[in-house]
C-alpha cells in the first residue's frame, strides 16, 4: 500500500472538482461528492501503516532554482501515521460539517476549501524534501486563511485570516531560507541530519533554528502564538480539523521528521523545550481569562502544542508524536462538542451567552466531559493520560529535569481552564434557555460524528503504547521503547489536573448563590486600580510625544543631528 500512499494527497481532488463544479446539485446534497476522499485516505493509510515499509517517488529537475529541486514524495510509517490522523479527523469533520453547515449558503465553497486543505496537508506530510514540504506548508496556510475568513462579511474574520497568513509567512520564509541554504542535492528530509547536508551556511545549528522558526509559526508557539486564538473566527469544524488536530500539529511533525538534525543542535533543542514550556504555561493562564468559548479551547491547543514541543525539545520525539496522536482525537472532540452548543445557540460563541446552554445537548455534554478528562490526563481510561505522562516523564529523565517539573505543575492550569469552560457551559444553570433551538436534521450528523472521537479519546492511549512503537521506525521511538502504563508522576499529574478542574468549577458555580442573594459582583481593590491609573498616566505621558505633526518630528531629528555634531566637535576637538 505504500506506493499508493505516496500519492494519497490527490485523494480529495476528485471530490474538490466535482463539488466545485456543482455535482450533485442542490443545497442539501452539496458536498456529498467530497465525502469519499477522507475515508479512502484513512483506509489506505491504515493498511499502509500496518504493512510497514517505505516508498519514495522522485522526479528530477522540477524546481531548478532550489539546491534540491526534485519532486520527492516519501511514504513511510511516520507519514502514514500522520495521514491516519488526517484521514480520521477529516472524515469525522466532513460528516459533522454536513450538519453544521446545512443551512449555510456557502456550503459548497466550504467543502471545496476542505478538500483543498486535505490535499495540501497530505502533500505536506508526504513531502520527501524541503521543496515539496514548502509547497504543502504554504498550501495549508492558504487554505487555513480561506477557511478562517470563510464568513468574510462578518466583522473581524478577514483580519483574523490575514493575521494567520502573516504569522505563517514568517514560517514559510524560514523554510524557504532553509531550502535555499542546504548544499546542492541535499534537500531530502531524511538526510538533513547528515554532515554533508549541514555543511551549508551556519551549519546544523542555523538549519535547525530555521526549521524551528517554521515549526513555531505553524504551531503557534512562543511569540507567534497570536494568530491561533483569533483563527477561531472561522467555522467550528475548521477549528477542530485545522486549528486543533492536523495543521497546527505540522510543526511538531516537522521537528519529529528532522529529529536527526536536532540532535546535532543541542542549543536549538534546548530553546525548543524552553519555548514549549513557556508557551504551555502562558497559554494555559490565558485560557483561564477568555470570554469566548472557542478561544478558551484554542489557548488550550496552543498549550498542548507547547507540551509536544517540549517533548521533542528534550530529545524524545516519540513522546511529542504520541501526544500529537491522542491530542488530535480529544481536542477535535472538544471543539466539535462545543460546536454543537454554538450551532444550537444560533452561532453565538460568548461564554456569557452560552452560560448553561450545554445542558440541553446530551451528546455534546458527554463528549466535552470525555475530552476534558483526556485533556487533564486521567490515567488508564483516557488517551491523554498516557501521552502527557510520556512527555512529562521524558522531560524529567532528560538533562533538563526542570522542564518536566514545570510541565507537571502546569497540569493544574490545564485542569483549571477546562474545568472553567465545562462548568460555565455545561453545569451552570441556564440564563435564557429559550434561545436554544434544536434542529434534529442538522444535529444528527453532528452528534454521531462525536462518537468515534469519544472512543478515540478513550482508547488511543492503549493503541499508542501497544502498537505504535512496533510500527514506527527505531530512530523516532528512540530509547523510550515502552511508556510506563501508570507511575507516580502520571498519578501526580492527574491529581493536580483534578484539583484544578474541580477547584475552578466550584469557583465558577459558587457566585450564583451570591448573585441570587442580591450581592454585588467583583469590585477592583485599591492597588489594582492604582496599577490601572498608573499605567494610563505613563501611557499618556509617552503618547504625547507622538503628536502626528511632521514638523515636530523633523524638528526633533534636527535637534538630534545638532546634538550629535556638538558632541563630535567637543569630544574630538
Amino acid at each position, binding site marked *: 500500500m505504500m506506493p499508493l500512499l505516496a500519492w494519497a494527497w490527490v485523494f480529495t481532488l476528485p471530490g474538490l472538482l466535482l463539488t466545485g463544479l456543482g455535482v450533485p446539485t442542490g443545497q442539501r446534497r452539496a458536498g456529498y461528492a467530497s465525502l469519499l476522499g477522507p475515508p479512502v485516505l484513512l483506509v489506505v493509510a491504515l493498511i499502509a501503516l500496518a504493512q510497514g515499509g517505505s516508498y519514495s517517488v522522485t522526479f528530477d529537475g522540477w524546481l531548478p532554482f532550489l539546491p534540491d529541486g526534485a519532486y520527492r514524495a516519501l511514504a513511510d510509517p511516520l507519514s502514514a501515521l500522520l495521514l491516519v490522523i488526517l484521514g480520521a479527523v477529516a472524515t469525522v469533520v466532513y460528516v459533522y460539517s454536513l450538519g453544521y453547515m446545512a443551512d449555510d449558503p456557502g456550503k459548497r465553497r466550504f467543502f471545496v476549501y476542505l478538500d483543498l486543505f486535505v490535499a495540501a496537508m497530505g502533500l505536506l506530510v508526504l513531502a520527501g524534501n524541503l521543496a515539496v514540504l514548502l509547497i504543502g506548508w504554504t498550501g495549508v496556510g492558504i487554505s487555513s486563511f480561506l477557511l478562517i475568513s470563510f464568513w468574510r462579511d462578518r466583522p473581524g474574520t478577514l483580519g483574523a485570516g490575514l493575521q494567520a497568513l502573516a504569522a505563517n509567512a514568517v514560517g514559510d520564509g524560514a523554510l524557504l531560507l532553509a531550502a535555499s541554504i542546504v548544499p546542492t542535492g541535499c534537500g531530502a528530509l531524511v538526510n538533513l541530519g547528515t554532515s554533508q547536508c549541514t555543511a551549508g551556511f551556519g551549519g546544523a545549528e542555523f538549519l535547525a533554528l530555521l526549521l524551528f522558526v517554521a515549526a513555531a509559526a505553524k504551531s503557534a508557539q512562543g511569540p507567534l502564538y497570536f494568530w491561533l486564538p483569533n483563527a477561531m473566527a472561522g467555522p467550528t469544524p475548521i477549528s477542530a480539523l485545522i486549528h486543533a488536530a492536523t495543521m497546527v500539529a505540522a510543526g511538531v511533525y516537522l521537528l519529529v521528521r528532522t529529529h536527526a538534525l536536532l540532535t546535532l543542535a543541542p542549543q536549538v533543542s534546548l530553546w525548543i523545550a524552553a519555548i514549549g514550556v513557556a508557551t504551555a504555561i502562558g497559554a494555559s493562564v490565558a485560557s483561564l481569562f477568555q470570554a469566548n468559548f472557542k478561544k478558551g479551547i484554542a489557548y488550550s491547543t496552543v498549550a498542548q502544542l507547547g507540551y509536544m514541543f517540549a517533548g521533542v525539545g528534550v530529545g524524545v520525539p516519540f513522546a511529542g508524536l504520541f501526544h500529537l496522536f491522542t491530542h488530535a482525537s480529544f481536542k477535535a472532540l472538544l471543539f466539535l462538542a462545543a460546536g454543537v452548543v454554538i450551532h444550537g445557540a444560533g452561532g453565538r460563541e460568548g461564554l456569557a451567552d452560552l452560560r448553561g446552554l450545554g445542558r440541553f445537548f446530551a451528546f455534546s455534554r458527554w463528549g466535552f466531559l470525555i475530552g476534558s478528562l483526556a485533556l487533564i490526563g486521567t490515567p488508564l481510561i483516557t488517551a491523554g493520560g498516557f501521552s502527557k505522562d510520556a512527555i512529562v516523564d521524558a522531560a524529567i529523565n532528560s538533562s533538563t529535569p526542570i522542564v518536566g517539573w514545570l510541565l507537571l505543575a502546569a497540569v493544574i492550569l490545564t485542569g483549571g481552564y477546562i474545568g472553567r469552560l465545562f462548568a460555565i457551559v455545561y453545569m451552570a444553570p441556564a440564563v435564557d434557555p429559550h434561545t436554544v433551538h434544536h434542529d434534529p436534521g442538522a444535529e444528527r450528523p453532528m452528534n454521531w460524528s462525536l462518537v468515534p472521537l469519544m472512543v478515540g479519546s478513550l482508547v488511543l492511549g492503549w493503541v499508542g503504547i501497544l502498537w505504535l512503537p512496533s510500527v514506527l521506525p527505531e530512530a523516532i521511538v528512540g530509547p523510550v521503547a515502552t511508556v510506563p502504563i501508570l507511575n507516580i508522576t502520571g498519578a501526580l499529574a492527574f491529581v493536580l489536573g483534578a484539583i484544578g478542574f474541580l477547584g475552578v468549577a466550584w469557583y465558577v458555580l459558587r457566585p450564583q448563590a451570591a448573585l441570587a442573594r442580591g450581592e454585588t459582583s467583583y469590585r477592583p481593590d485599591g492597588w489594582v486600580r492604582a496599577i490601572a491609573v498608573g499605567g494610563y498616566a505613563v501611557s499618556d505621558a509617552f503618547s*504625547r*510625544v*507622538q*503628536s*502626528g*505633526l*511632521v514638523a515636530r518630528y523633523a524638528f526633533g531629528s*534636527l535637534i538630534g543631528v545638532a546634538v550629535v555634531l556638538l558632541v563630535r566637535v567637543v569630544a574630538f576637538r
Partner: protein
Amino acid sequence: MSSEVLVLGTSAVLFAIGGAGALMHRHPVALLMAIEVMLNAANLLIVLGARVHGGADAEAAALVVLVLSAAEAVIGLALALALFRRRAIPDVDDAVELRG
C-alpha cells in the same frame, strides 16, 4: 576668504534655509521643495569634499544623492497627491491621524 570656505558657508546657509522651510511650511509641495534645498546643500558639501581631496568616490556619491533625491521626490509627490485627494485644504499639520 578662500573659495572652499565660501562654498562651505553657502552650504550651511542653504541647509539652514531648507531646514527652516521644512519646519515652517505647511503646504506639502513647499515642504518637499525645502527638503530638496537641504539635500542640495548636503550635495554641495560632498562636491566640495571631492574637490579638496580629489578622486572620483565623492563625485559618485554626489550622483547617488541626486538619484536618491529624485526617488524621494517621487514618493513625496505621491504622498502630496494622496493628501490633495483626501482634504480640501492640503495642510500637513492637519494630517495628525497618527497622534498617539
